[in-house]
């Protein structure tokens, strides 16, 4: 049983096949069944002797936007159209239509969505275009092998374009926000009309002669095939081909591919796109710089951490080797050795003493009946005894001394005074009064009593002519 399609499914498959097979085509034919509904879109069919093709020309593709006065201008170039083909298009006209083939599913028809519609006058230009393209291709103008890459972030850019066109403004507006700064030198030229091809060639030659720029950029805003024609001339193609500098083109809209585009080293779809191809987004540069900044910082931190660990290890090693530590270790060693020496000395002298003791013992055994110790003990015993005797003797002598002192106390001349006796001294002789005869009347006496002295005079003495006391 073969696969049975749903209608939508089959239509979708056809649509995919048609749209991928004919993404962009040029079709020539006669306009029939033209209609202009209020939406502004234009519908017609292209017909030749044997077939017809439905065409829809949407308002947005009809070459420009409406101005207040009803005119139109190209939103990219700012170019004002004097009259648009969509306004003058009529049944029976011979036209060439460029666009995409698509399938309109609700009605099950395939149709051409027009991007560009040109009268057959322009169609002749297109034939010229094809002829030139064929010729130049044969001469190797489009060889991929001879195409040079764009310089990386050019800082000196020669732009060949109309200085007042939208193309240069778009290019600058985009370029300003990109990269890290660049100089743009505009080589002004007409980019449209009979004088344009030679103008473009001269501008290219001047830019090359100035020997300043790193790259040439050919710019022109969108327009009809006729408008862009200067870029399809053999003169411009040759100048681009001969340029010693790389050439970047940004001509027309995305769908417009001129001969100059094909000869150029790199083709940008539009002037804005040309700026995008030349310079990276500044935010990307900032981000890359930030990344590198962080990478360097992090790496340095890690390096420092590693080195700090190394340093700690080395510091420990170094402190072990430091002079102070060495001194301490030497002191320890010295102390140890001193102790060993001391022990060795003790051991040695101990040995000597033991030898000596042994010798003495042998000596005493040989020459004395008693041991030296025995004699020492005897001496000690005698000394003890002597000490006891001496103590006793000293004690007895002390006793005698005390007794003598007591007796001496009784001989003290002052002792009887206390008991009421008194001593009288004859002042004349200075002698103690012992006998009656020692004094004569009138002699003065100094009488010493227990406490103090009394002075007296003798009034009566001795019996033989003396006076009594």
């Amino acid at each position, binding site marked *: 049983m073969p696969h049975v399609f749903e209608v939508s499914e089959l239509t979708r498959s056809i649509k995919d096949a048609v749209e991928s097979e004919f993404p962009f085509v040029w079709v020539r034919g006669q306009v029939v069944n033209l209609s202009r509904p209020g939406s502004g879109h234009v519908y017609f069919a292209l017909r030749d002797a044997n077939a017809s093709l439905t065409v829809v020309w949407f308002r947005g593709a009809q070459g420009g936007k409406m*101005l207040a006065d009803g005119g139109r*201008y190209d*939103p990219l*170039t*700012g*170019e*004002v159209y*004097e009259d648009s083909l969509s306004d003058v298009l009529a049944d029976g006209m011979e036209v060439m239509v460029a666009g995409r083939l698509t399938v309109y599913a609700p009605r099950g028809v395939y149709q051409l969505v027009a991007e560009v519609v040109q009268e057959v006058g322009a169609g002749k230009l297109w034939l010229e275009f094809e002829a030139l393209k064929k010729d130049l291709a044969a001469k190797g103008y489009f060889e991929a092998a001879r195409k040079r890459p764009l310089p*990386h*972030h050019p*800082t000196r850019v*020669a732009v060949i374009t*109309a*200085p*007042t*066109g*939208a193309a*240069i*403004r778009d290019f*600058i507006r985009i*370029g*300003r926000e990109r*990269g*890290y*700064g*660049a*100089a*743009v*030198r*505009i080589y*002004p030229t*007409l*980019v*449209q*009309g*009979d*004088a*344009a091809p030679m103008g473009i060639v001269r501008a290219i030659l*001047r*830019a090359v*002669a*100035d020997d300043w720029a790193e790259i040439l950029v050919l710019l*022109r*805003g969108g*327009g009809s095939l006729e*408008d862009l024609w200067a870029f399809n001339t053999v003169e411009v193609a040759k100048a681009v081909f001969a340029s010693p500098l790389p050439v970047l083109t940004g001509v027309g809209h995305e769908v417009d591919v001129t001969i100059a585009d094909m000869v150029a080293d790199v083709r940008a779809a539009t002037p804005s796109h040309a700026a995008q191809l030349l310079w990276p987004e*500044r935010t990307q540069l*900032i981000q*890359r*710089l930030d990344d*590198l900044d962080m*990478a*360097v910082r992090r*790496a*340095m931190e*890690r*390096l*420092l951490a*590693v*080195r700090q660990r190394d340093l700690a290890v080395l510091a420990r090693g170094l402190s072990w080797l430091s002079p102070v530590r060495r001194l301490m270790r030497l002191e320890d060693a010295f102390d140890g050795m001193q102790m060993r020496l001391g022990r060795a000395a003790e051991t040695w002298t101990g040995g000597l003493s033991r030898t000596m003791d042994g010798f003495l013992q042998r000596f005493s055994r040989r020459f004395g009946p008693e041991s030296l110790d025995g004699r020492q003990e005897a001496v000690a015993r005698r000394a003890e005894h002597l000490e006891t005797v001496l103590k006793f003797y000293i004690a007895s002598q002390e006793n005698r001394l005390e007794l003598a002192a007591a007796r001496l106390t009784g001989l003290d001349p002052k002792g009887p005074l206390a008991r009421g006796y008194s001593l009288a001294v004859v002042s004349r002789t200075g002698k103690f009064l012992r006998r009656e005869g020692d004094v004569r009347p009138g002699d003065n006496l100094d009488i010493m009593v227990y406490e103090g002295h009394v002075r007296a005079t003798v009034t009566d003495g001795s019996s033989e002519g003396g006076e009594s006391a």
Partner: protein
Amino acid sequence: MSVKEESFEKALERLERIAARLEAGDVPLEKGVALYKEGMELVAACRKRLEAARMEIALAGEDGSPRPFDVEAVEAGGAADSIGEKTRDS
């Protein structure tokens, strides 16, 4: 500006090499510090360069000498006033 016109990319490349060398970790400390210092200087110079980044626009004169070109004035003139591209052979 310490980073010359053409050397911005070189500065970034140099920074990448510096980061790689520091990340490898086998540099002597003094060299590491020197690399780090150089790296930070490059970062600062590049940052300054990006902050100051602008597009200089000149118009090449017929005699080959460039003269200042004020694209703002052209923009202010309005899109419809484009003259360079209005020359059509109708």
